[in-house]
């Protein structure tokens, strides 16, 4: 099985997984921290709710539900409280 890294921890994925499905199968359902400090996760699954945004290594936010997994790519939970990706 291939793997990517979630907060530096390896997560296995199949060629059909999106980042969201791989994380859910891995047992991760907290994808981000929202403004009030509560966790966010996948909700609409089709790129409309923006609830599953995760952060790529280059700082960009992507929807985990639409994003393909890439071998050895690093994803991090976004923290919208401090706009971590802009720091």
């Amino acid at each position, binding site marked *: 099985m291939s793997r990517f890294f979630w907060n530096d921890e390896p997560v296995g994925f199949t060629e*059909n997984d999106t980042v969201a499905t791989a994380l859910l*199968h891995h047992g991760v*359902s907290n994808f981000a921290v929202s403004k009030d400090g509560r966790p966010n996760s996948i909700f*609409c699954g*089709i*790129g409309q709710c923006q*609830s599953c945004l995760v952060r790529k290594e280059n700082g960009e936010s992507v929807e985990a539900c639409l994003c393909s997994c890439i071998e050895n790519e690093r994803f991090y939970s976004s923290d919208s409280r401090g706009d971590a990706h802009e720091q």
Partner: protein
Amino acid sequence: MSSDGEHSFDVLVVGGGLAGMSAACKLAESGLRVHIVEQATTLGGAVLRRAQTGQNPNLNGVHESSWRDLMARFDRVRKLMSVSVCSTYTGTDSTGAIVVTNTSTSTSVSLRPKAIIVATGALEKVRPRMGWHLPGVMTAGALQVLLKTSLRAPKKRVLLAGSGPLLLAVAAQLTRLGNPPLAVIEEARPSRKFWHALKLPVGYLLEAANYIKVLKVAGVPIYEGRFIARIEHCTSGLRVSFTGDDKLCFDTDFLALHDGIAKNCYGMRPVGMPIWHEAGDCALGLGARASRAHGEAVAIEVIKQLQVFPVESVEMKVRTKELLDVLSRERAAQSTLAKIYSVDEQSALDELPHEVIICRCEKKSLSDLFDLGADPTNREIRLNGRFAMGACQGRFCAHWINMLRKKAGTAEGDRLIGSHWPIKPISMQALIHEADHLLSAEKKSSD
């Protein structure tokens, strides 16, 4: 004419689902060059979502033959089509150029097609409930897309609740993938209204009978007339309690909610765009069958507007009539379904406890809304209350806020959300990329 790298094309189709593909095929069959942008990694949309490897576990049921037919047509006119996946319609700038962003490369291009067909699909309606913001709660449509894309069911407990036939469909798909849900808990009482069902097209009845059979064989309980009282954390995941005297309650890992589908008109109709159409569920919210017909009908309209043929052919007139018939049949079927699955949403909203989250993005509660006064204006709700201001731009709260305000007899209209672009968040880098590109092109032409 537009140019997008090596491709040039006449019509831009946004969304590669049933409506978009149906429109694109019709356009290309008339000799028009078509560019399709799709936000996911594969064509198919929510209804016909495929795994990236193209495998299909026969989860699409009756819609599968529709897909095969479209793909066969698509292949025949392939040389007139270009497709960009991982790409979204971002907006239309002040000069009328359409900005399309590729989210995997963080690059944008601006395009000037002769016509644009927006087929971005429906919005899934989910009514706020106590605890619906907790991780593990998702829409039934999201769960269905997860199943169709990854071809595996999460090895976790799943509960389905809310209202509408999609709950049965997803429950049956989960069962087929080896993980039957704990239960399906429907708010309406469809079995008491079975006489309405006799008015449905036979395809609908067969589809429903098939789902129910799968669930019965697997022993999945189906409840009716039950509303969620609250969703909360418990030691093993989520605890979902329901209304009723028997204190019905489930501990689960995932809860999939669904309250029907709605139009998704959060795009924008730009001033000055010569030919702009919305096709399928984003415009109608009538489901898969109607979307396919509407996509084709809209394509015929575009073909006429672009004057591809000097006169409208008899064949085209006949086809338009057939498509309109399909649409009116589907409209009738959906209104029958709405009667079968009728739920008093206003009462359900009015009974919500004040601490329930209404805006999922900014986690604003019902009491935050009430704190704005008896009849706040749209601006007050947005700017003071921060409702409909989050990353989803009000897609999941504005409808309910408007219903809650109606009760208070609001003087304001229900235009809580405007038309702003980008229609969803994109990185600055993606925009700057295109701005740089345009500036250098401008410089080159002035030199």
